[in-house]
Each structure stands twice: as C-alpha cells, then as structure tokens.
C-alpha cells in the first residue's frame, strides 16, 4: 500500500537496518564482505543516502533535543558506517542526557567492545556470555526494542501521506493520536484547516500489550483496536509508581466494544517507572505506555473528553486525493441524513439506519416508532451540523468500512430546540453508509 519517497538505495539500507544481525555489520565486516552477504548492500552504504538519514535525524533533534531515539539512531548509523569515534561521542552524550535509557547503554557497550571486533549483534559480546538468565531476558527485550524502533525508521516513510484513520478533526479538536501497534508507534497529528488533512507533529515509540492481537476479554493482555477518546487525566501523585508521570484513561470498552461483548477496562495511556526511560515493545497489560519525558511533552496537546486516540494494528496511508475522496463520501452521507431528517420524511430519514442499529435505550424498531411519532408533531425542523470530526474505524480487510463521526448538532423545530454533541458509528453496507449507533 505504501510507496516510499526515499530513493531506492536508501530503502535498501533501511531494510538492512531492520535486520538486527546486520545492524553493526560495518564495524567488523568490510563493505565487500557485506556485499556478499546481501546483494545491493554495498550500494546502499553510499554516503549520500546516509547523509539523508542523518539530515532527518538532525531535524528531529532540532525540533526536540530530548528526542533520545533520534540520538540513538545517529550513534547506530555512525557505528554502522564505521565511524566509531563519532558513534561513541554521540552515545556518550546520550547516556549522560538520558541515564535511564537502557538500550543506549547497551549500544554504548557494543561500541566500546567493537574495538576488539567482538560484536556481531546488539549485546552479542563475550562480556555477556556468562550472565544469568534474567540478564539474557533483559538483553532480548532491549534487542526487541531496538528492532522495532529501527523498523519504524526504516519502513515508515510518510512523505505527504495521511492516515485513513483521521479523516478530519473538525474545528474544535486540535490534536489526534494514532497508535500503530505493529510498529509500536504513536503519532500525534495536529489540525490544519477543517477540510484539509491533519499534519504530523511528532511520533513516539510506545509499549503495548504483552500479547499481540485485538483485545476481547478482561485480562487477555492485549491492546484494544478502535476509535477511542481520552476521558481524563490522573496525575502522578495519585498513582502507583509504575504509571510514571501520569495517566490518560481511554474509553475502552466504547459503545461498539460493549455491543460486541468485549470486557475489561483500565486501558490507559501512561508513563513509565522512574529509572526506566522506556519499556520493552510488548510489555503492558493492554495499556499504551510512553516514556515519561514524552508523556510530559504530549500532556499539553491532550484535552480530556476531547482528544481522540485511534489504535490500530497497522495504519492505512492515503495520498491527499484519496483522503479527500473518502472524506467527501462520508460528509455527503451525513449531509443527506441531515437533509432527509429536516425534510420530515420519516421513511427517507430512517433509510439511513442499519438493521442492527442501537442506542443506549433503543433498537431500530423502537427508534423508528419514536421518530415516526415525533415527525408527525413537526411543522418545521432546522438542523445544523458543525465541527464534524471523522475517524475511520480499524477493521479487518474483509469487513465493511466503519467510521466514527463526532459533531455538534443544532436542532430547532416548532416544539423543541436543543444543541448537543453527537457521536455516530457509520458502516458502509454495500454502496451505502448506514448509521449503526447514535448517541450524545
């Protein structure tokens, strides 16, 4: 689905970087040895391509000098490229800035040991061969963290692409969060204008549930996939140490989850134990875990009760034209619903609802009866929708598309006037978008 804006050569090195065994290759194998390992690798080590990566990382560090991951990558790239001294100096500065970044210490050890040509993979040195199992597990976890971090750098290249999950933030949501479990990545998007795609502000490494897959029942150690909203903020002092700088609870199970019989609660976006910069990629009981420093940085962007957080296994990246097309399709469906409602033609209006429609208190039958009754009492209706936010729901490939719409609805009629914020789940049944759920 994704196409890359990186030059071909760069993609090759990026892929190489994603294979842990080859990460440190240049520090003991010469380029010609490497070339025999993997075709095209030699070419990929071209200075020009590396230079682009460095430029990108420097840009990240300029934007946020606390972007420790960018600094780690720089050290690893220097190391991979054979610039041991530069690598060492970069990693030394990093470990001073972030003394609890365990992965950085591990890489530092490797860079120091590489002087003797004894490192073939992260932490693969004789110094660790006599260690106890507890240390080996930690080593495995740090390797997994390195791998997924590098993978995200290597494989995700967005260019001008935008996630299908964010089809519009309306006029009152400033930022939206997207979590891509496959890459243990959290993206923060900011609103540009109401009808334009949001802009990526920053992305972070996060830890997710110990088990892969979508959450279904309490205690299954999985991170749920869906469209959620941050509900509140719990400060550090009210929480046990393991949550670090604080926590943003998320509204799992949402309306759809509950309908589907999903159980469990307490899915939070939270920080990390003090003394640990980050946690292994698959480590939580279902929560999304950020380094404290990143949570602090993100805190001001999040408005409890408002900020959406969409969690998906893998994001779908669209170019602007496709994003506009998908957005327009749903905006049109909503507008048609509004017009048909306003027209007081109950049949037309009810044709927008799915057979399995539900609300907190209604099924389609009771809803239809009530709406027909109400329609008969109206002489006129004015309905205005504004501040429309649209979020594509993460669904499996064979499932029909779903969208969560959140908007402001101003209603006025001969016998009733009221404004509410509405949340609506829509599903594409064949060619038509139909409402599955509607609620305040």
């Amino acid at each position, binding site marked *: 689905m994704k196409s890359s804006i990186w030059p071909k050569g760069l993609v090759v090195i990026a892929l190489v970087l994603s294979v842990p065994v080859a990460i440190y290759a240049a520090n003991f194998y010469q380029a010609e040895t490497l070339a025999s390992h993997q075709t095209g690798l030699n070419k990929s080590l071209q200075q020009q391509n590396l230079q682009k990566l460095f430029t990108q990382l420097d840009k990240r560090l300029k934007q946020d000098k606390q972007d420790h991951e960018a600094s780690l990558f720089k050290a690893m790239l220097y190391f991979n490229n054979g610039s041991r001294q530069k690598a060492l100096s970069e990693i030394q500065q990093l470990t001073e800035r972030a003394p609890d970044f365990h992965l950085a210490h591990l890489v530092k*050890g490797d860079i*120091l040991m590489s002087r003797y040509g004894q490192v073939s993979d992260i932490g693969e040195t004789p*110094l660790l061969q006599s260690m106890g199992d507890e240390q080996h597990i930690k080593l495995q976890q740090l390797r997994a963290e390195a791998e997924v971090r590098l993978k995200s750098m290597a494989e995700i290249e967005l260019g001008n692409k935008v996630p299908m999950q964010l089809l519009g933030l309306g006029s009152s949501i400033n930022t939206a969060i997207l979590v891509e479990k496959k890459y243990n990545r959290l993206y923060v998007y900011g609103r540009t204008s109401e009808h334009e795609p949001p802009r990526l502000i920053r992305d972070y490494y996060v830890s997710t549930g110990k088990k892969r897959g979508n959450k279904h029942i309490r205690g299954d150690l999985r991170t749920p996939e869906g469209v959620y909203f941050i509900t509140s903020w719990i400060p550090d002092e009210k929480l046990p140490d393991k949550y670090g700088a604080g926590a943003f609870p998320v509204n799992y199970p949402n309306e759809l989850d509950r309908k589907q019989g999903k159980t469990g609660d307490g899915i939070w976006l939270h920080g990390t134990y003090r003394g640990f910069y980050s946690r292994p990629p698959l480590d939580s009981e279902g929560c999304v875990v950020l380094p404290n420093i990143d949570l602090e940085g993100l805190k001001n962007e999040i408005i409890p009760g408002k900020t959406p957080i969409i969690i998906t296994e893998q994001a779908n990246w669209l170019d602007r034209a496709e994003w506009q097309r998908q957005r327009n399709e749903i905006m049109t469906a909503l507008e048609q619903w509004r017009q048909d409602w306003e027209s007081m033609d109950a049949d037309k209006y009810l044709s927008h609802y799915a057979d399995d429609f539900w609300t907190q208190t209604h099924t389609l039958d009771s809803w239809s009866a009530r709406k027909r009754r109400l329609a008969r009492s109206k002489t006129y209706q004015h309905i205005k929708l504004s501040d429309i936010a649209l979020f594509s729901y993460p669904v499996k490939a064979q499932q029909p598309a779903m969208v969560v719409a959140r908007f402001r609805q101003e209603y006025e009629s001969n016998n009733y006037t009221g404004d509410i914020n509405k949340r609506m789940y829509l599903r594409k049944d064949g060619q038509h978008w139909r409402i599955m759920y509607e609620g305040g």
Partner: protein
Amino acid sequence: MILVLSQSISAQVSPALADISGLIEAGQYQQALLQLDNTLSSDKRHPLYMFHRARALEGAGQMDKAIAQYKALIKLQPTLPELYNNLALIYIQQGQMQKAQTLLNQAMMIHPGYSRVYKNLVAINAAQARDAYAKALQMPTASQAKGLEVADTLSFVEEPIPASQAEPIVAAVTKPHIKPGMVYQANGDHADKRTERVEKESSVSKVEVSAAQAILLNWAKAWSTQNVDQYIRFYSDDYSPAGMSRTVWAAQRKKRIRQPKWIHVGLRNFDVTENGPARLRIRLEQEYKADNYRDVTRKEFILQKIDNEWRIIKERGLGYIGR
C-alpha cells in the same frame, strides 16, 4: 634541544635520581619528595627528575600537583608515551574517562607499539563497556578498570606487541584471584561448606543443602563440558524466563554454550538460605573462563525441590566482581 634531552634520558641517570626511584618503589613518597627538593639544581631540569617528582606527588596523594607536573613534562617531552599513560591513569582514578582515553589515544599515536598503553586502553575500554552493560541490563554493580599499568621508567624497555596479538583482550581486565581450598571446582569433589548458612530450625537439612550445592556443581560441570542437553535438565520443566518460550530459551542457551571453543566454570563462596518450603536461595561467585573471555560474577539461584530433585527455578546475575 628537546632531541638532546630525549637522548640523554636513559644515558645519564644520576645516582641520586636512582635512589629516589627506589624510594618511590618502596612507597616512601614523602621521603622521595624531600630528596627531590634537595637534588642539585642541575638535575632538576632532567626529565627523570620531573617524572619521579610527578610519581612521588601522585603517591603522596597530591593529585593536582602531580597532574601539573606531568603536563609540564609533556610540554617539554611531547614524544614520551609513558607520560601520557601515567597522567591518563590519574584521570581514570578521578573517573575522568574521556580525558584518560584522549591521552591514551595520543600515546598510541606517538608510539603505536607501546604495549602498556594498549593494555591500559583495553582495560578502560572494557571497564567502560562493562559499566555500560551493567547499566543496560540493570545489574547492581559494575567494576572499575583493573590491571592498569603505570610506567615507572622513561625508557622503552617494552617489547612492542601488535594490537591484533593482544589476546584474550578482556581477560586482562579481571584476573580472578582464587584461594586454594575455598574453590568449588565444577567436578564437585572437594566441596567446602565453610559458608553454608541455613537456620537450625530450617526444614531443609544440611544433607539437603549439600545435595543442592552438588546439583549446582554438576550444573557447572555440564556447562563446562558444553553438554547442553544435560545443562538444560537442571532447570525445572516449566522454567521459561518471562517473555521467552522454553524452546526459544533452550535454543539460545545452546548457541551461547556451544559458541566458545572451551569453557570452564567454577563456583565458590556459596551462601545458602532457605527461601520457602523445599526452596533454597543460593548466592555464589561464578568464575567463568573460556577461550575468548573470562570473568568472575556474583549470581543468585533459586532451587526448588521437585519430585525429590533440586531444580533451578531462577537464575540471575548480581554483577561483576572486580578482582
């Protein structure tokens, strides 16, 4: 001028300076400093005078003065690697690893074959690496650089060694010091129960304690003989470190155990305490030697009696022991 001085260094050692060298060797630094003060003023310009003075100052704990003396001497004699070496060691003592490293690198550039500098570089590199790994894997202790060599004379008596031959590199860092009699060899023949410590009212008898220790000795033996299947059997059947399946774990152990050409694992200083019903916590020192590496670490094992057999249910490193 400098060239003349360099040539004169080993040629003209005045008897007085030789005496002072002896005092420094004997650790009589104050005496040495007094004598240095009383040296003929002509001798005070001699590089060896300044060198001895720096060493005596260092010995007497006057580090700032010693550093200043070495720096002055380096200005005068920028081609002597010993000076960089010794000054670097002072910086290491002060924990200024970067400065030390820079100096040792300079010394290597001046005289690439000077093995002492190379060894010291290796030692601090390995100590730093060890420190980094200890931090990365959250082990409680990390060791200081060991086996650092101070130059005690200014002549090139060392046989230059090419860097590539200096093996095994890491072994230079810790030279395990083993007292005969307190060592548990992996064959377990002469078990020393000196450090046993099990409460009298304990449900685990002394016999059981010896049995548990014997199990660990046999575990070490399996490791030493690189017999992976046997080694794995010492762990309980459901032993699966968090985040890893037993298969993955076993495969990994296999790789690690088979990698070196040879391994010898010795255990000593057993410290046994009860850790629940039919469960023992054993802390010990593990001396690990292999063709490519050696170290001494502290380890903790939890042994559980399962079906009348002691099995390892937990194993973790408590840190490197510097020796």
